[in-house]
Structures are given as C-alpha cells and as structure tokens.
C-alpha cells in the first residue's frame, strides 16, 4: 500500500480480520483441558462475613478463596496503592466484591454451585452517595482519620480568594453533578490463565499487560518475571480494562497456583454492568466572584465518588482539578479536590480520566453566569479563552499556540451559530449550544520520565522491522498508527513493519495504554528508534532501543502540584443543536459540529472514527446513560436498562481538524483519544437549556429528569 503524506487515510491493518470474524478475542480461545471459573461476590454493601456455606463440591471442582493465598503472598492487588483485596475476607466493603472463585469443568454445574453458596453477613449501614461519604454515614471508612477521604489536593493561582471575594460586587454559586457511566465495551472482561514452562501465563482482554504482572505477583510472593501476560485482541476498553483486569487475573493466579490447569473467566454482560469499575460520579461546588460583569476569581470544591478502594482515583481526581477551569484563564482561582470513599463498586479510569466531570461543571457554570448576565454564552466565554504563555491553574504555562478562536470561527460558521443563537428564543423548543474543552496529553508533569520510564524497541530482520512495545490496540487504531510512524520514518512500505499484540516476556515496557499517551509518547519513541535504525541501516540486522526523555525547562513538582502539568494540550469545540418536544420532553439532536486541535493527525480516517465515537459517548453520558446506585446496588443491570446510543439517536457529525503541529510528538501528533469525550455533553445541556428556557445542574438528563427539573425550576 502506498501513501504520500502521513495523515493520508489508509486501510487499518486489523480491519479485515475483524470484519471477517477471524480476530481471536479471549472469549474465542479454548485451551486443552480448560476449566471455567465463576466469581462468587458479596451481596452486602458493608458488613462482616459470618459464615460461608459451600455445598459439597463434586470431584474436579474447587472453591478458591483468600485462604488459598500462600504464606509468602499478600491478599492485595497493587494498582497504584495496595488497598484492593483480591478476595474479601472477614468483611465486605461493597456489593460485587470478590469473595471466591468457583472453578471446574462444566459451566452448568458451576452456575448451580454458585447459586447454592450461601454467605451470611452481619450488615452495617453503607455510605453510597458522595453526601453519604462526606457525612461518614455508617461510621468513617478511615477510623484513624475519622472520615471517608481517600485523597485530596488543592491548587491556587493569583491573589488570595478572601481578598478577591471581598472585592466582588456579586458572587455566583452553584452545585453541578455528574452520574456514573459504564464503559460498555462490547467485549466484556475476560482472561485465561495457564502454565507454560513453570510460568503463569495469562491471555487477557487488557489495556496494560505490564500492569497486570506488577499488580498480581505479590499474591503468591513471586517475581513479575514468573508471570507472562499476552494481550488478546481487545474488544473496546475506554479505561475499563486499564486496572480492572487485575481484579480478574489476581484470583485466577491464586486458583492456578492450586489447580495447575488452564482456567477461563469471562464475565457475562450482567456481571460486567454491575460488577466492574465505572466513571466517577462527581459533585462540584463552583463559586465565582464577579465585578462589573467580569469574572475576577473562581473557587471550586470538587468531590469524586471513589467507591470502596482507591485504584487510580487519586490520579483521576488530580486530572479533574487540573482541568477544573476548562479552557479559561481566570485571574485568581482556588481549586480543592477530595476523593470520597463509599460502599460502592470502586470507580476507575474512563476515557477523559476525571477531566470530563470538571469540564462539564465549569462549562455549564460559565453558561449559567452568561444567562444570568443576559449575554450569549459564547460571547461571554470567549473573552476568557487562555492564550499561549498564560498561567494555568497549576502555575505552569500554556506552551503551544491556542487555536480556539480559529476553531470557533469554523464551527460557528458551519453551524450557523450566531443566527440560530439569536433566533431560537429561550423556551421556543429549539436550542443551540456550544462548548470548548481541552485535554492534557500523557502523564502529568514529568511522570513520563519519573514514573513510567517508557521504552520502545525495533528489531530488524532483512527488510522487515518489528516493533516491540507493551502498548496495546483496543480499537483506537494503534497498530496502524504505530506501523505508519515506523514505516514513514524508515521509508519502508507499511507491509514490512510487524507489530504483535504484546507478550510481556517478549517486548519492552512502554508504559500503560492510557492517558492519550500512546501515539504522542510511544509513537515518538518508535520514531526515534526508527531514526536511529535508519542512520545505522548499513550495519544490517540491528536492534535499536530508546527511553523517554522529558524536554528540559518545564518543571513539575508532584508534591505540590505546581508547574507545567502538560506539555501539549488537545483542544476542542463542539456545537449541538436540538429540538425538544415540550409535551414529552423527548430531545431530538438535529446537528453536531466539532473542531479539534490534535497537533497533526497520523491517519485521518482513524482520527475521524475516534472523534465520532468520543462525541457520541459524551452525548450518551449527557442524555441517556443513567446508572443509579440504590443502597449499594446498581439499579441498571444490563444493556436493556442501561441504554447507550444506537445509530438512530444522533445525526451525522460535521468534523474538522485544526492543524497545529506539536514539536515533541511524532510527525506533530498530540494525544486525542480522550479529548474528544470531554465537551459535547456540556454543549448538549446548553442546547436543551436554551430550547426549554431552563437550567440543569446535573447529567444525564433523560426526558424524565428534564420533566423533574422543569417542575423544580417552575416552583
């Protein structure tokens, strides 16, 4: 296949095998003498385990619990901290917590056994919502601290807030909330464990094979080298397979240590919906100081519902705070974040990683201030757009040129925004909304260098070059993007570049496939390794390996959260037009227009698909994806009651990319996978608010919630 520019569309390398049904996902694999596993989980949100009654197990069946962890092992998964237990023992902290793994040859028998294991609890009062957690309902989760606060941070910029608020002639304060969101990767979670040459080998649907090794080795007190993780074709992830595969693989490792036969664990959809990690529900209290109709300061208190274990939540919360002023330069800010523990399934990574919640909040807050002042929201917001060189909320600076004004020009023209914004009077049933957003690419600050230390390796054999990295394809197009970067740099046809799903025993650790870092960081490493190989081409079959180096002059202090949090931001504008049936409150979206600055695209077709998909996920989040937790139990349990967008729910999108090459990315590329999720929700809410002449303070807003808000606002 030939192409001339890096951005030219090519056929994805994995498209045909997937479309032909030939790609092997973990659920498609069967190993000889393979056994199956079912999880036995807590049905009590908080309490002591008094008794576990297990029926007599037929020959060949085992019930694996914490008691099967050997002496030298510890019952903990090492995600970021080591608080998540592989198996609950003595007490449970949430509904769905793993208590044991039933293993055996026949799934019908296993299901029967699972349904006949009886666990007796002494229930305690659970904390479920953020407010419950703040009030330490049922007693503090951390008795030594006397509260449920897992983690906290704050950032300050400009003058002291008391001074700013004293000066204000008006203070605009409101609380904004977002709900849970379930990933609904079409392929549910799953893994297989087996033994090979004395090592524990995993086949997993996973984003981060190296994370799994690190997380679970301590359960048996073995070395990470005793564990091999092979990623299978992964049917979507969106963050849901970043740390969560550890929760499957940990118990499987303990079982394998006892049983020594291949064991397969695949969640069905009901398990995956109720008993997997979710996006953090949030509650943000924004307080803005106004003087002569201008913002002089902003104070925000941000709470995220962490659930019962920390997993990645502190990092999620940090990102939430770093994005809590959106695209705006507010002269003085004070931002506080707290991760609140509750007796609910732990929340973890989900596309956007904490940024969508605060961006929704600040964007909607800005719209509400504009309505309050009687000006067009965009007219109001555009005066605060941050510019190159200006100070960020972490006292760092925007390094790149901010092209939002140009992007707004494209979107407002295509959408005919200014005419419609005037013509559609509040409450007329038609509305147009617009949002701006951003996303910091890769790990925060110098994390890529200090924490990740990513490597990439290229191996040449004749005229073929193999890429050896631990980064994964989960649908985002990484296999193609990475091959393109290598092919382009080496000036070889893309067919001569090989890349296999990673096997931790064969590739170098290039860090997790997360944080929109794979193209931006790992792609750059591959480009550098390819440049070196090209220079040394005459030397024949060589291997080149490079390590990440952080550019000089961009300091970051992870203990105080000060400095340049991100070297490159992605930027976005989304405009949404709706028509609302005022009788039924059914919302019909009639137009979607977006523009994104992602540096330079590596492949326009892949980028186009990412934009479309991210926007629809965000619109689903705003409009229909309602996931409620009542008394510790999720009320929506399957795809027929947790509804995500179909092909009929939203119209074709207008799509535009703003060229703005990023100097430290491969061929000018920046991160983009998460950016495209971060803002369409706010544009949708803005549009519905204008159509109905009302305000909303939380998402999602399905018709029944619109009805409720209208009633409340009418009072």
């Amino acid at each position, binding site marked *: 296949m030939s192409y001339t520019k890096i951005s030219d*569309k090519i*056929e*994805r390398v*994995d*498209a*045909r095998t*997937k*479309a*032909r*049904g*030939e*790609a*092997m*996902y973990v*659920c*498609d694999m069967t190993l000889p003498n393979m056994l199956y596993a079912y999880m036995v989980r807590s049905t009590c949100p908080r309490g002591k385990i008094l008794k576990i009654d297990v029926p007599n197990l037929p020959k060949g069946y085992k019930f694996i619990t914490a008691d099967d962890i050997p002496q030298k092992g510890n019952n903990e998964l090492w995600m970021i901290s080591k608080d998540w237990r592989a198996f609950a023992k003595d007490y449970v902290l949430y509904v769905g917590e793993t208590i044991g793994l039933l293993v055996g040859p026949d799934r019908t028998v296993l299901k029967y056994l699972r349904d006949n294991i009886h666990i007796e609890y002494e229930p305690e009062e659970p904390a479920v919502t953020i407010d419950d957690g703040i009030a330490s309902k049922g007693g503090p989760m951390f008795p030594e601290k006397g509260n449920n606060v897992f983690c906290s941070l704050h950032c300050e910029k400009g003058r002291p807030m008391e001074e700013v608020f004293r000066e204000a002639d008006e203070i605009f304060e409101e609380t904004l909330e977002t709900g849970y969101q379930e*990933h*609904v*990767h*079409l*392929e*549910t979670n799953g893994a297989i464990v087996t033994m090979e040459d004395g090592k524990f080998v995993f086949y997993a649907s996973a984003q981060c094979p190296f994370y799994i090794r690190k997380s679970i080795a301590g359960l048996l007190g073995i070395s990470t080298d005793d564990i091999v993780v092979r990623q299978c*074709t*992964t*049917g*979507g*992830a*969106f963050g849901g397979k970043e740390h969560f595969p550890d929760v499957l693989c940990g118990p499987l490792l303990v079982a394998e240590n006892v049983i020594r036969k291949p064991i397969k664990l695949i969640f*069905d*959809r*009901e398990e995956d919906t109720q008993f997997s990690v979710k996006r953090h529900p949030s509650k943000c209290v924004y307080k803005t100081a106004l003087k002569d109709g201008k913002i002089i300061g902003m104070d925000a208190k941000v709470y995220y519902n962490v659930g019962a274990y920390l997993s990645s939540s502190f990092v999620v919360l940090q990102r939430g705070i770093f994005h809590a002023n959106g695209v705006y330069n507010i002269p003085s800010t004070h931002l506080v974040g707290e991760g609140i523990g509750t007796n609910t399934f732990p929340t973890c990574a989900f596309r956007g990683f904490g940024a969508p919640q605060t961006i929704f909040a600040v964007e909607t807050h800005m719209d509400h201030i504009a309505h309050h002042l009687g000006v067009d929201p965009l007219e109001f917001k555009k005066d605060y757009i941050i510019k190159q060189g200006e100070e960020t909320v972490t006292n760092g600076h925007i390094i790149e040129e901010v092209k939002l004004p140009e992007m707004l020009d494209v979107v407002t023209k295509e959408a005919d925004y200014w005419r419609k914004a005037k013509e559609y009077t509040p409450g007329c049933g038609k509305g147009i909304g617009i949002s701006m957003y951003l996303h910091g690419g890769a790990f925060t600050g110098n994390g890529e260098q200090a924490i990740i230390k990513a490597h990439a390796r290229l191996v040449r054999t004749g005229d073929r070059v193999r890429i050896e990295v631990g980064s994964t394809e*989960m*649908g*985002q*197009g990484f296999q193609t993007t990475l091959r393109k970067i290598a092919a382009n740099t080496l000036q070889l046809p893309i067919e001569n570049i090989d890349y296999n799903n990673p096997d931790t025993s064969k590739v170098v650790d290039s860090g997790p496939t997360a944080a929109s870092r794979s193209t931006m960081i790992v792609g750059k490493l591959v480009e550098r390794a390819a440049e070196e190989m090209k220079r040394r081409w005459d030397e024949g079959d060589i291997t080149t390996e490079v390590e990440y180096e952080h550019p000089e002059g961009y300091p970051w202090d992870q203990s105080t959260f000060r400095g340049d949090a991100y070297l490159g931001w992605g930027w976005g504008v989304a405009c949404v037009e709706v028509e609302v049936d005022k009788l039924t409150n059914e919302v019909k979206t009639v137009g979607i227009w977006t523009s994104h600055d992602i540096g330079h695209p590596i492949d326009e*077709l*892949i980028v*186009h*698909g990412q*934009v*479309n*998909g*991210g*926007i*629809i*996920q965000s619109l689903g989040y705003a409009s229909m994806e309602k996931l409620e937790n009542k008394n510790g139990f999720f009320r929506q349990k*399957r*795809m*027929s009651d947790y509804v*995500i*967008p*179909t*092909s*009929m729910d*939203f119209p*074709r*999108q207008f799509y535009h990319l703003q060229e703005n090459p990023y100097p430290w990315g491969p061929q000018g590329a920046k991160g983009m996978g998460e950016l495209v999720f971060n803002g369409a929700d706010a544009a949708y809410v803005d549009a519905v608010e204008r159509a109905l002449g009302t305000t909303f303070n939380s998402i999602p807003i399905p018709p029944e919630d619109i009805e409720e808000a209208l009633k409340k606002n009418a009072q």
Partner: protein
Amino acid sequence: MLSEVKFTLNGKKIIYQGDPLRRLLDVIREDLGFTGTKEGCSEGECGACSVIKDGRLVTSCIIPIGACNGSDILTIEGIRDTEKGECIVSAFAEGGAVQCGFCIPGMVMAAYYLLENNPNPTEEEIRMGISGNICRCTGYDLIVDSIALAAKKGAELWKK
C-alpha cells in the same frame, strides 16, 4: 430432555442432539466452533450475535436451538468469502467502519441483510438497518458510510 434438531449452517447439514433450550449462539460458537459470531449482551439488545436464519436477521443469543429444526442459518463464516460478503468487508475496511471490531461481524450480517433486501438504501434506511446493532467505538457515521460504499461498489451484485 434431549431432542434432535436438523438444520443447515453455512450450507452444511448439521444434526444436533441435546438440550433443545440450548442457545443457537452456543451451538454456533461452542459446539461447531464458529467464533466469528460474538456474544455482547445475552438478551437480544446489542446485535453482536446477529445471524441470518431463514432469510431473516436474528439475534442468536435469544433463540433456542429447538426452534431451528429445518432452518437454514448463515453466519459471518458463511458469507465472508462470497462476492457479497467480500464487498461488505472491503467497504468496511476502506471506509473506516472497524475499530475494536467486536460488534463488526454482527454489523456485517446486518449490512448484508439490508443490502439483500434494499440494494440502494438511503442514509436513514441504513441507520434503521443497523439500529439493532450497538457499536460503542465509532459513533456509527463511518459504518453508515461504509454500508453506502458497499451498496455503491456492489451495485449489480445486490440486484441479483
């Protein structure tokens, strides 16, 4: 209770003996080893397990095998090497319809069924035609475009 069910899968005669309530999906994937048909939701909502049964697009996760006696069933394995199947697969690859790919075999079946019955669909008809197939990755636009491309490229093929 065991029973015998005779049906045709991808042109091959199959005699099933066993539980008549076993799902068609399990018979296809596990008993016969055709793993191209995927299980997404287990309740007929997502369309990942779509197959064509007696000329109709169905979700095989909610059909008991006992209801398949005498049926003619087509899975992705049965169409991918046909001219029409190849036309759709190529259009999906060219048009950027494929991301994680898990919904895609079912989506190809839905596209096949649509174009067999409507060789020249409008965008609205395409969206309707795949409305029973959930995709979490693409936002659908490029799938819709790819099906339109298959209609255009296949042209005469679909009128046969």
